[in-house]
Structures are given as C-alpha cells and as structure tokens.
C-alpha cells in the first residue's frame, strides 16, 4: 500500500479513536471519587448534544454549547442529590444498578422532551464536507476538534486533581472516605462535585462528537459501552490512559477493516481487548497494586 493510503487509514483510525477517547474520559472522574462506574454517562453525552442542537437554532454555536454544558451539570448534580446521596453505605453493585436505572430514566425523559428523530450539531468549523489535508490524506476538522478538546480536558483534569485543593480532596474521598471526613472534607459534596464534573465533561464531549456521529435519544447505551470498554482498557481511573487506549483501539479497528471485511471489526476489537486484559488485567497503563485496593 502506498504511504498515502496507510496514512489515510491512520487518520481514519484517529477519527474513530477520538470518539472513543472523549467518551471514556467522563467515566474516570466519578470512578476516582466514588469507586463506582456511572452507567448513565452515555446519557450525559446525548443530553449535552440534544440541548446544544436545540439552542443552536437561535444562539451562536459557542454559547449554545456552553449553556448545554451548564444545563447538563445541573442535571448531574440533581442525579446525585436525588438518587445517590441519601444511600447509607451502598455496595458497589447496588450503585451500579441504580445508575443503570438512572440512564433509563434520562433516556425516556429525552424521548419525551425531544422526539425520536436524529439530530446533528453544526460542525464547529467549516461544514459537513470540510476536509483538512495532511500529508496527502484527509481528515474532517471536527475530528481534530474532538482530539484537541480531549487533550485539553485531560491536561486540565490532571492539573486539577494534582494541584488544586478540591481536586486533592476528591482523590482523598476515593482513597478512604472515613479518613477524608476526619480531615474535614465534606465527602458528600465531593461526590456531588464529581457527578457535576463528569456530567459537564460528558456534555462537552457529546457536543464535540455530535457533528460526527449524529445524536439520537437512545444512543447513550452504546456510547457508554464503548467508553467503558476503553476506560477499562486504559486502566480505570486514569484519564490520560483512557484517551491513549481509545486512540489505540480506533487504530486497531480501522487497520483491521483494511485487511478484513468490515463485518469482523467488532470481533477483532473485542479479541484484542480480551488478549490485553488477559495479560494486563488492570489495563494497559493500570497498576496492579492500585487495582487491588479498589473494590470494583
């Protein structure tokens, strides 16, 4: 194959990987603070996209996205306040089932607020046919936006969790909730904050990928599965690893398409996933000692 063709496959893989990566980031925040996987994360993405599409009909795009993120943050806070906070000391399994129930609730709510039709947000720059030329191959500018936004979010999150007081308080809550409370950290608000942060990032991700994937009220479940898989592949709790794993998986899938019929794509990616998890159960970048300390 000519270099151009190989590079084109590479760019196609990055496009697909960007979608995986940006979805996976949100899982890690709630996991880091509470130790649970929020299966309603997919719905946050769809909600952000839907609100932005409705608002962008009469507002400039940037404002529509900002308001969509804000609205989803409020929804995230409500989810925690109404369903999670009053649970005394719930087991991980119980919380997981509750988040699945929340995802169904949000999905049906979206069906009633909007309808079953597919929508797509305007591309951030250019139009649906814009195409950037890199070394003889082409990629959509929206994919570059998704990659760029993922990078910015991951860097900002790392700085937040490592350097700011609130970020460190959230990590403390995850490590040992009782000890954190003894230190004077209001753990309940840390959990709420983690839901808000996760919802906001999910909404931003949903807006970034909506021009690429189109948005429909019931897309949340399949997006969540993709994101969750990639988050595990990278190592739960590590956002940068999730992005790397997402890009890697996207590349694996697209290069498998170049050799085999498209119908085998999912089989290939799942096989690769299983092989990796066999040899490195805590994910590509996860650390076994850290994994042992966590319940999930």
């Amino acid at each position: 194959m000519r270099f151009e063709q190989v590079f084109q496959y590479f760019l196609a893989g990055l496009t697909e990987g960007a979608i995986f990566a940006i979805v996976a980031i949100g899982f890690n925040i709630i996991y880091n603070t509470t130790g649970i996987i929020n299966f309603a994360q997919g719905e946050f993405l769809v909600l952000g996209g839907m609100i932005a599409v409705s608002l962008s009909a009469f507002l400039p795009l940037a404002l529509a996205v900002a308001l969509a993120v804000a609205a989803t943050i409020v929804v995230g806070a409500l989810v925690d306040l109404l369903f999670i906070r009053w649970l005394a000391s719930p087991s991980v399994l119980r919380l997981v089932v509750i988040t699945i129930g929340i995802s169904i609730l949000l999905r049906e709510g979206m069906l009633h607020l909007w309808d079953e039709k597919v929508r797509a947000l305007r591309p951030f720059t250019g139009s649906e046919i814009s195409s950037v030329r890199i070394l003889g191959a082409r990629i959509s500018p929206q994919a570059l936006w998704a990659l760029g936004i993922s990078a910015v979010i991951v860097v900002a999150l790392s700085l937040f969790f490592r350097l700011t007081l609130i970020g460190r308080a959230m990590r403390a809550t995850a490590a040992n909730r009782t000890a954190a409370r003894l230190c004077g950290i209001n753990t309940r608000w840390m959990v709420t904050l983690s839901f808000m942060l996760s919802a906001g990032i999910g909404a931003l991700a949903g807006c970034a990928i909506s021009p690429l994937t189109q948005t429909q009220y019931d897309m949340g479940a399949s997006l969540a599965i993709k994101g969750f898989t990639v988050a595990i592949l990278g190592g739960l709790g590590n956002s940068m690893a999730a992005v790397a794993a997402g890009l890697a998986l996207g590349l694996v899938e697209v290069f498998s398409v170049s050799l085999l019929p498209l119908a085998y794509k999912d089989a290939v990616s799942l096989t690769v996933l299983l092989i990796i998890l066999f040899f490195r159960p805590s994910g590509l970048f996860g650390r076994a000692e850290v994994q042992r300390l966590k319940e999930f």
Partner: protein
Amino acid sequence: MKKIVAKAVLILALVLMAALPLAAQKGSIKIGAVLAVTGPASNLGAPEAKTLEMLVAEANSSGGIAGRKVELVLKDTGASPEKALSFARQLIEEEKVLAIIGPSTSGESMKIKDVCEEGRTILLSCAAAEAIVNPVAKWVFKTPQNDAFATRWIYQYLKDKGLTRIGVVASNTGFGNAGKAQLEKYAPQFGIEILIAEVYDKEATDLTGVLTKLKAKDVQAVVNWSIEPAQSLVAKNIRQLGMDAPLLQSHGFGNIKYAEAAGQAAEGIIFPCGRLLVADTLPAGHPQKALLQKYKKQYEAKYNEDVSTFGGHAYDAFIILAEAVRRAGSAEPEKVRSAIENLKGFAGTAGIFNFSPTDHNGLDMSSFEMLTVKNGKFTLLKP
C-alpha cells in the same frame, strides 16, 4: 332494599344482553399496525404511524369504511424483528385484527410473514425487499416498490454515465442485505463491476474506516443501501475523505431528514424514488397527482413536517385495504384478501397498483423517478 337492587341488576343485565348482539352486527373493522416508531428506523415508522392515525381519524369522521367504524391498534417495535413477531402474534390471536399494516422494515416483515400466513390475517407490509412477496404467500402483500426495481434504475444510470467500477456499502439489516444481494445479482447484466462490497452496522457512529477502503480501490461511484440514519454518515464521510465519486442511494433515502442530517454532503446524491416527493412538478392530469397533493397538504398541515415516501407506503396500505373492503362488501378476511388480489389500475402514492394472484406488490419500474438533492431539497434529476 335487597330485592330492589337485585331487580335493578337483573334489568341492567337484560338490557346489556340485548345490546350486545346489536353491537356485534355492524362490527367495526380492527386494523393492527406494527411499526418502528422509535429506534433506528424511526424516520420510517414515525411518519407511517402518523399517516395511519390521520387516515383512520378522517375515515371515522366521515362514517367509516363502508359504514363500519375503523379501530386502529398501533404497536411500536423499535425495528426489532423479535418484538414485531410477538406483537404480530398478539394482534392475530388476541385482538383478532382483519389486517396488519407494517412492519416498517424488511427484516421484521420476513420474520412475521409465516405467522400472518398461518393466522390467515392480511399483511400489508411497508417494507421493500422483494423477498417479502417472492415467493408469493396468499395473505402477504407489500406496498413499497421492489428493491430490484431500484437496483435496475441505479444501474441504468451508472451504465449511461460510464461509471462501471463501483463500491457498495449496505447496512446490516434485512433491507440492506437484500439490496446488496440484488446489486450483486444485476451487476453483470448492466456491465457493472462491483470492486468492493461491505456491510456496516446500522448503529455505526463513524464509517471513515470502511470508506477509506473504497477510496483505496479508486471506485468511480458509491452505492449506499440503507434506511437508517447512518446512511447520512456515508455521505459526510465520503466528502470528508476528499472522494469526488458520486453517491447513489436506494429508495430508503426518501425522507428529507436524511438529507438534512447530511447537510452539505447531501448535495448531488442521486436516488430512485416514488413521485410523492416531487408531486408539484408532475404534469396536470397525471393519475397520481391529485392524490399525492392531497396527502402532502393534509399531512404537512397536521404534523408540520415534510411528507416522506415511507408515510406514503402506510397511506397506500390503508387505502388499498379500504377499497378492498368496499369492493368485497364485507369485512370477512378471505373476501377482502381476494378483493386486494383483484385490484387493478389503483392509484397510490408509490405508483399505480396492479395486483394479481402471482403479484402481491402490484408495482413496476414506472413507479419510480430519479431524484437528486439540490440546495437541501429533493428535485427531479434532469437527464
């Protein structure tokens, strides 16, 4: 006191018993509808459901069909063949409907074909695969044009333009797979060479990978066979990859929502379709024109959205059934069934229907026109 109550109950029971036979005499017609109102085929099922509700309300407000009230029992399958099967069984065995309109997709229709045949219930499918009526089953009919016709229209166009080396992508549904089979079957006849044919997931979020494969083969045209929103992704991804090859779609593209979702990438897409979408440009006196304009006006006024050919298939199913009941003079299943089989020269939204015992679709190649997307709207393709 007890005696008075007992007498009152007895009188009430007698009155009800007398009323029941009266109710059973001029029975209402029960029609079942199994449609994909939500889910990946919602651009088909939702307009179909709305059209049926509109028509049933209209019929009932003007005395019903042949003096009988119409009762519609609508079920939403979400395009799941399993749900379609279970709803079909429910409608046939519990609700005892005269006919079932739908399902919206070919996969679901193939799944319930046998159940309707065994249950001696008329099935008027709104799905396009030729396999639904070939081999012919006594009780199974369909209203959309065959995918075989669409294939031949597309290939004739490609042959005329000298675009003989093509790539085919289809969604992994009954409709997509049936379409791909038709494309492969007719290719040699028109001198078309399919360089690559791939099937994509109907809920795909990105198709750049498989389209890169088509780009690498230097195809002269791309044929996309799908009814899901993912078909708009093909349009977008092709242009984002910098491919200039023209894109041809199946008649599964007949809802303006697909063109809107693809935005600028929809410009220049070519596809064969029924005349509903270009009703206003038809010459006066065309046998379908009055009907098409009436449906368009009614639907758009009531629901504030553009008509689609899919809603038209449900429209045809209902008016065919209504006409058959009128001609049979009864709502007895076998009589209505054979009345449908003998309908000739009947104008519907998809074309002029000519049913027969061996042709349960009733349409032919002339039911199509070649359409294209210009400035975000559907227009006739100028040769």
